[in-house]
């Protein structure tokens, strides 16, 4: 039994395919035939290029650009001449020469003060490994053409691995390194396959062909377990499949409580691909499109056209269903190296989100232009993040108005009925929500930040994580205040934080009168099932009772019965 970090949920049972990449032992020798050595190098490079071209022909757009960069590294004249130079002048064998040159380049990139550039070191490692394997005449496991379904065990899963994987043949990942936000974890979740990462040295403990079972929720891997355990996992897996099938039946149904209260169940997304998944999972709208991902992992601001295309795609996927697109929310824990923002003592209380947008208006205007242009393709709603005062709403709206006028002058169409709303995630905004409600079309409560700001708990600080608690009575009182104030002014109120998809709190939020719940795509169907089984009238009483309670733990224990 091995313990790691559960990175993608689900139960899986299958045979291991061990990706052996780390095991090449490079010896340094003095060679005699320089030409022969150089020839070996040239062949290894040529084969690597061919392999990448093959992978590229089957890859998606995102992966293609990574692979293009890999091809450019392989053909890099400095790389080639440096290796050849070492062979010629030092009479070094090609393997050692390549290793030395790669190390030099990797260390240059790893030492850079720019995170984006540091990440390029991984690309060089990745492509260097391929060339090295080819020098040894070992073929890298061809993940594109697996004969039977396997669980992949690897030190780490790299972008070029996932680029070539046939999702249907991969039953799960287990890796030595990584955390919940590493490439391997993110890819596993997006491919919807179970994964456990950060297992330490699992690649030393398993070999190809071993039978492995694990539950991605638990983070525990069992290798060649007894028959009784295999049977247990098989039963759990069957149950999981049956439950999923049961939930699938709810894809096209409405979210209505037993006594007829209709709710909108929406999904949080980061890109158009997520929108497809949300739609497949029965989301009735997009409650939060986090546009910052368009700005991340790149060297420059996305152009208006790039943004327009992404927004348009999401709007078209969702058709007439509402799509709330949040304007850029950068800063805090999300950095954009190319904006060269100074390091701050308290980034969560600092220069971020709407504060940046109202200061660097060209960034904001580009985004608003793209949004307005895309608005004709669906049901767009615009949402400003990190609002703490009425002035900010007015300023943001006046920029929006300017952009609208620009478009009119240029005869560019945009929808005439775009709702504009705000995130309520700063206690100040919650407290004056009766004032803010008069100037916006909707509220969406962002609980992740609202909890952290209300309780003065840095949600990244593990020492005080016990204080970061959605059952905190002050947090629940603020949520109720915001919903009531919104309704008094005739606007609807939604929620797009983690809490909205939390089965423990859904009954309370329903009772408080929340109109829209936005959550990850995977939570939509379970939430629909839950709400269909609840009575709104009864939950109103439950919510009232909860609001009278004064201890978080007691509230948590009390609401358990409605889960």
């Amino acid at each position, binding site marked *: 039994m091995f313990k790691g970090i559960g990175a993608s949920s689900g139960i899986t049972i299958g045979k291991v395919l061990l990706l052996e990449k780390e095991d090449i032992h490079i010896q340094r020798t003095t060679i005699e035939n320089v030409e022969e050595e150089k020839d070996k190098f040239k062949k290894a490079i040529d084969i690597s290029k061919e392999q990448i071209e093959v992978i590229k022909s089957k890859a998606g757009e995102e992966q293609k650009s990574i692979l*293009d*960069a890999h091809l*450019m*590294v392989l053909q*890099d*004249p*400095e*790389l080639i001449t440096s290796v050849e130079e070492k062979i010629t002048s030092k009479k070094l064998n090609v393997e050692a020469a390549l290793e030395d040159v790669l190390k030099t*380049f990797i260390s*240059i*990139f790893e030492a*850079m003060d*720019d995170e*984006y*550039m540091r990440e*390029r070191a991984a690309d*060089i490692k990745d492509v260097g490994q391929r060339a090295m394997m080819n020098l040894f005449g070992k073929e890298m496991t061809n993940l594109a053409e697996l004969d039977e379904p396997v669980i992949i065990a690897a030190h780490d899963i790299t972008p070029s691995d996932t680029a070539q994987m046939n999702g249907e043949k991969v039953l799960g990942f287990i890796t030595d390194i990584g955390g919940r936000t590493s490439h391997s974890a993110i890819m596993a979740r997006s491919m919807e396959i179970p994964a456990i990462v950060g297992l330490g040295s699992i690649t030393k403990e398993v070999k190809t062909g071993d039978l492995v079972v694990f539950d991605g929720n638990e983070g525990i891997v069992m290798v060649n377990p007894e028959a009784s355990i295999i049977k247990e996992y098989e039963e759990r897996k069957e149950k999981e499949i049956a439950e999923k099938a049961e939930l699938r039946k709810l894809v096209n149904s409405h979210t209505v409580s037993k006594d007829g209260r209709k709710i909108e169940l929406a999904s949080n997304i980061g890109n158009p691909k997520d929108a497809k998944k949300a739609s497949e999972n029965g989301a009735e709208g997009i409650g939060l499109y986090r546009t910052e991902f368009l700005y991340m992992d*790149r*060297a*420059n*601001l996305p*152009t208006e056209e790039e943004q327009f295309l992404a927004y348009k795609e999401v709007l078209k996927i969702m058709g007439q269903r509402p799509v709330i697109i949040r304007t850029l929310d950068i800063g805090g824990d999300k950095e954009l190296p*190319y904006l060269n923002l100074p390091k701050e003592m308290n980034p969560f209380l600092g220069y971020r989100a709407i504060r940046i947008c109202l200061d660097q208006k060209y960034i904001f205007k580009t985004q608003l232009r793209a949004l307005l242009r895309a608005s004709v393709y669906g049901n767009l709603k615009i949402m400003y993040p990190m609002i703490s005062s009425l002035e900010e709403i007015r300023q943001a709206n006046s920029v929006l108005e300017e952009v609208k006028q620009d478009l009119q002058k240029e005869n560019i169409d945009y929808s005439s009925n775009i709702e504009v709303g705000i995130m309520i995630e700063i206690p100040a905004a919650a407290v004056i929500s009766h004032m803010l409600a008069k100037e916006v079309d909707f509220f969406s409560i962002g609980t992740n930040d609202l909890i952290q700001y209300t309780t003065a708990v840095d949600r990244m600080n593990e020492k005080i994580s016990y204080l970061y608690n959605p059952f905190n009575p002050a947090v629940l009182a603020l949520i109720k205040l915001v919903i009531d104030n919104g309704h008094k002014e005739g606007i609807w109120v939604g929620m797009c934080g983690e809490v909205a998809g939390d089965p423990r709190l859904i009954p309370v939020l329903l009772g408080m009168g929340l109109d829209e719940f936005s959550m990850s795509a995977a939570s939509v169907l379970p939430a629909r099932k839950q709400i269909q089984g609840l009575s709104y009238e009864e939950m109103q009483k439950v919510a009232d009772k909860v609001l009278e309670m004064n201890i978080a733990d007691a509230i948590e224990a009390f609401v358990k019965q409605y889960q």
Partner: protein
Amino acid sequence: MISKTVVLKNDTGLHARPATLVIKEASKFQSNITFIKGTQESNAKSIMGLMAMGIKKGEEVEIKVDGPDEKETLDTIIALFESNFGE
């Protein structure tokens, strides 16, 4: 051999995208092209070399071209810098 000094104007420096453009253009010519910044220099056909120089906004780069098509080569590379790499 001819050369000219230019100032990098794009906000994000010579990152992957502009560097890729330089290489794509540079590879169309036979001449040797060298970028020089202070004491650092790099072959302009090398992605790793160019990116490792870490050229930032406002920094001067000397572009040195040597070869049969040097005039045309230099003009093309300068034009790239002046167009801000299409950004």
